[in-house]
C-alpha cells in the first residue's frame, strides 16, 4: 500500500490527493500549517490553511493569492482524501494537518507548543497512525517554566529598569512571539512601542478581530517622553543596531527558548534572557508523541537525530527526515 504522505525534494507530498504540505518549491496545491516564512512560501497556485491563517498568509504572500480557509476540525476533501486542521498552539492560526486515506491517518504538525499562551489556540493531540513532529528543542535541557512565571519575571525586570532609569526593550520574533508578549503583558498598563515589522502584523490581526492591546509605531518623530512608561517590542534583527540606540539608556531582554543556555544570552549581549518559546520543550515533544498513539514517527527540523534515536530506544519506531524548515524565527535566535 502506498504511504499517505511521502517526503520529496519539494516538500511533504500526498500522492493520493496530489497536494503538498508546507512545500519549499512552488507546487500547484499547497496545504499550509502556519504563516511563518519557512512553512508558507510564495509561488504556489492554491493555498489551503486554517481560517485564522488566511489574513496572515495574505499579509506575507500578497492579497492576490488563491487561498481557502478551513475551521478547526472541519474536514476538506481533495481528490477523495480527507484533510482537517487542528490547533498547534505555535502562533495565531497555526495548525496540525491531519490527512486520512483509506482509514490511515497521518498528522503533519508543522511547529507546535503544548502550553496554551492565550492566543494561539489550545494544542490538541490528534490520534493518528503516523505522526510527523518537529524537534527544534529536542534535548532534555530544554524545559520551559510556565508562562505565568516567565511573564512575572519580565514584569519585575521592567520595574527594575524603571527604577534604574532605563527603557525596557524586549526582543521577540515579529509574528507570534511579539503578539504573545503584548497580550500577556497588557495588564501592566504600559504603552507598547513597536518596530515596523511588528506593527504591520498587528494591524492585520486587529482588522481580523483579534483582541490585542493597542500599539504605537516607533518612527523618527516618536517623542522621547513616550519611551517612559513603555515597553519597546522589536524583532531580534534589531539587536545592536543603530535603530536601537535612540532608546539609550536601555536594558535589553531577549525572549527565546535559546535563552535557556547562558552562553546564548551572552552572545547577544542581552541584559536579560527569558527562556520563553513557541515550540514544545523535550517533555512536550515526548508527551505529544505518546498521546497521538502513533505507530511510527518522522522527526523533522531541529535535534532530529537525537529525538528519533531516543524514541527508537523507547520502543517507538522513529526516523529522521531532512526538510527545509527551521530557517526562520526561533531557530535562528
Amino acid at each position: 500500500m502506498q504511504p499517505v504522505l511521502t517526503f520529496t525534494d519539494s516538500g511533504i507530498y500526498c500522492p493520493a490527493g496530489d497536494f503538498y504540505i508546507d512545500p519549499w518549491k512552488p507546487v500547484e496545491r499547497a496545504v499550509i500549517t502556519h504563516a511563518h516564512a519557512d512553512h508558507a512560501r510564495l509561488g504556489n497556485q492554491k493555498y489551503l490553511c486554517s481560517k485564522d491563517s488566511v489574513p496572515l498568509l495574505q499579509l506575507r504572500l500578497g492579497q492576490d493569492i488563491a487561498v481557502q480557509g478551513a475551521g478547526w476540525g472541519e474536514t476538506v476533501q481533495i481528490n477523495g482524501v480527507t484533510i482537517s486542521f487542528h490547533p498547534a498552539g505555535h502562533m495565531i492560526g497555526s495548525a496540525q494537518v491531519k490527512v486520512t486515506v483509506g482509514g490511515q491517518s497521518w498528522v503533519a504538525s508543522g511547529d507546535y507548543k503544548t502550553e496554551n499562551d492565550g492566543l494561539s489556540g489550545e494544542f490538541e493531540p490528534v490520534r493518528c497512525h503516523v505522526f510527523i513532529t518537529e524537534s527544534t528543542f529536542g534535548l532534555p535541557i530544554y524545559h520551559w517554566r510556565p508562562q505565568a512565571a516567565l511573564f512575572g519575571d519580565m514584569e519585575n525586570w521592567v520595574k527594575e529598569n524603571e527604577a534604574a532609569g532605563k527603557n525596557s526593550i524586549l526582543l521577540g520574533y515579529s509574528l507570534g512571539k511579539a503578539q504573545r508578549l503584548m497580550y500577556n503583558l497588557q495588564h501592566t498598563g504600559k504603552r507598547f512601542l513597536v518596530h515596523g515589522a511588528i506593527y504591520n502584523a498587528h494591524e492585520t490581526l486587529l482588522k481580523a478581530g483579534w483582541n490585542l492591546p493597542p500599539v504605537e509605531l516607533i518612527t523618527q518623530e516618536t517623542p522621547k517622553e513616550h519611551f517612559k512608561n513603555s515597553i519597546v517590542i522589536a524583532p531580534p534583527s534589531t539587536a545592536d543596531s543603530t535603530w536601537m540606540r535612540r532608546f539609550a539608556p536601555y536594558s535589553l531582554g531577549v525572549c527565546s527558548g535559546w535563552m535557556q543556555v547562558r552562553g546564548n544570552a551572552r552572545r547577544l549581549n542581552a541584559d536579560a534572557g527569558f527562556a520563553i518559546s513557541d515550540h514544545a520543550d523535550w517533555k512536550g515533544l515526548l508527551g505529544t508523541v505518546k498521546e497521538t498513539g502513533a505507530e511510527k514517527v518522522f522527526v523533522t527540523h531541529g535535534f532530529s537525530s537525537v529525538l528519533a534515536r531516543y524514541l527508537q530506544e523507547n520502543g517507538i519506531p522513529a526516523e529522521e527526515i531532512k526538510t527545509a524548515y527551521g530557517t526562520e524565527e526561533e531557530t535562528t535566535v
Partner: protein
Amino acid sequence: MHHFSQLISTLAGSTKTNEKLEALSSYFASADERDKPWVLALFSGRRPKRVVNSTQLRQWCMEVTALPEWLFSECYHTVGDLAETIALLLPPPETKALPQPLHYWLDVLLRLEKAPEAEKAAFIRNAWDQMQPNERFVFNKLITGGFRIGVSQSTIVNALSRTYQLEPAVVSHMISGNWDPQQITLPQLLSDAASNPDDSKPYPFFLAYALENKTGELGEPREWQAEWKWDGIRGQIIRRNGQLFIWSRGEELITDKFPELTALLPFLPDGTAIDGEILAYDQQQQRPLPFQSLQTRIGRKNLTKKQLQEAPVAFLSYDLMEWNGEDLRLRPLSERRAILEQLVENVDQPALRISPPIAYASWEELAAIRERSRDNGSEGVMLKKLSSAYQVGRRRGDWWKWKIDPFTVDAVMVYAQKGHGRRSNLYTDYTFAVRNGDQLVPFAKAYSGLTDKEIAEVDNWVKRNAVEKFGPVRTVKPELVFEIAFEGIAASNRHKSGIALRFPRIHRWRKDKPVAEINTLDDLKELLRQHS
C-alpha cells in the same frame, strides 16, 4: 549560596565594567565574612581541592535523571559547559532545607576528600536536591573549576580597593601568593604585610599592550630600552628569609618544576624579586630551544633526567622589583636595570642570565633588527621607557610589545565542532587541512579569529554541509578556505601531519580563494626547515 549565585547572575548579566565593579564591591561589603575569601579565591583562579571529578558528577547526574550516556553527551556538546548541563538536566529540587551559605558547602565538600565514593555521591545528590537551578550551576562550577564570568583581575582588585579603602596596587600585592580561604578572612589578608608575613608573595606583573602607533611617535630612541620578546613562561624569582620561590604570570607557584632555578638559592641575597622569562635554553649556542621542549617539560608531574638534559631551562632577567628587601618599583627602569645587571653578574650562574638590551640608534634600525627576531628564537621586540616605573597589570604608555607578523598559510576547513561559553550551540571550533597530492592532511585546530557575524555564517554553512558525524565532530565538505596565522612551527610525532603549530588562529576568511589554491604539506615542511 543564594547571595553568591545572585552575584554571579548579576555579573553574567552585565556587560559594563562599572556595573560589575558595583556588584562586586557591594557583595564584598555585605557578604558572609567566611564566604568572602572563597569568592576572592575563585575569582583569582584558586580552585578548591578537587574532591570529586567531572566524570563522577556526570555519572551521578545520569543516575538521577535516568538519561542514557549518549543523550547526556549530546546535551553537553550543545550547552558547552558541564556544570550548566547538569544544572539544566536535574529535576526540580524536592528537599526543603534551610539555605546554606557558600562556605558551608565548600567546607563539607573538602571534609569529604578521603571519604568513600558512595558518601560523596550522597552528599552531592543531596546538595543538588536542595538547590535552585542557578545555585546548582554555581555549585557545580565550584567543584569543576574554571569559573570564567568576564571579571578581570583588575575589576576584582578595584572592587576590593573600593570596599576596603585601600590603594589598588596594595590590594593587588596583598591578595597574590599563597593563602587558604578556609584559614583567613579578607581583613586579615588585606592587613599590613608585616603583621601577616608571607615570604612567597610575588608582585603583580607589569604587562604591555601591542604597539598601537608608529615608533616615530614614541619620541627619541635613546629614551627607550629595546629587548627581545621571548616566548617562554613569564616568571618571577623571589628569595626571602632563606627560601626561594618561582611564580608564573598566572600566579601559580611553580618552584618545583625548575630545579635549575631553585639551585640559585645560595647565590641570591635575601629580599630579591626578579621578573624574567623561563626558557628552555641551549647554553652552548646561547639561544632558546623551541617552545615545544619547554611545553613537554611543564606538562609532567615528575621530571626525568632525560627531560632535564633535553630541555634545560634558564631565566632571562628583565627587571628587578625588590632588592635588599626594598620595593624598587617606583624607581626608573634605568636604575632598576643597573642593579639587576650587577646582580646577575655577581651571581655568575648560567641559569640566571640578563635579557640583553638591543643596541640601536634609530627607529629604522630597530625595525630592521626586529625583522630578524625569529633568527634568535624570539617573537619580536619589547620597548620600555627608561624612565618607567614598574606598574601593576596591563598598561599603555611606558611599555609596548612589538611582535613580528605571524606565519600564515591558506587551508581548508575539514571538521567542525560546537564551542563553549558564549559560543555554545554554534559550530566555532574548526580543524583545517592542507593539500598533500590529492589528499587533505589536517594540521591545525583554531577557535578564534572570526567576527560574530562570520561565525554565524560558518555555523549555518556547517549545519547544511555536514557530511558525517563522529560524536560531537562533523566532517564537512572541504570548501571553505581560511588564512591561518601562527607564531611558530615545530616537528611533532604526535600529529598526523608531522607538524605542530604555536598559537594557530584564523587570520581571515578567504572567500576569494578556491580550494585548489590552498597551501600544501610541502609548503609547511619547507617553513619548518627554514625555522629549526
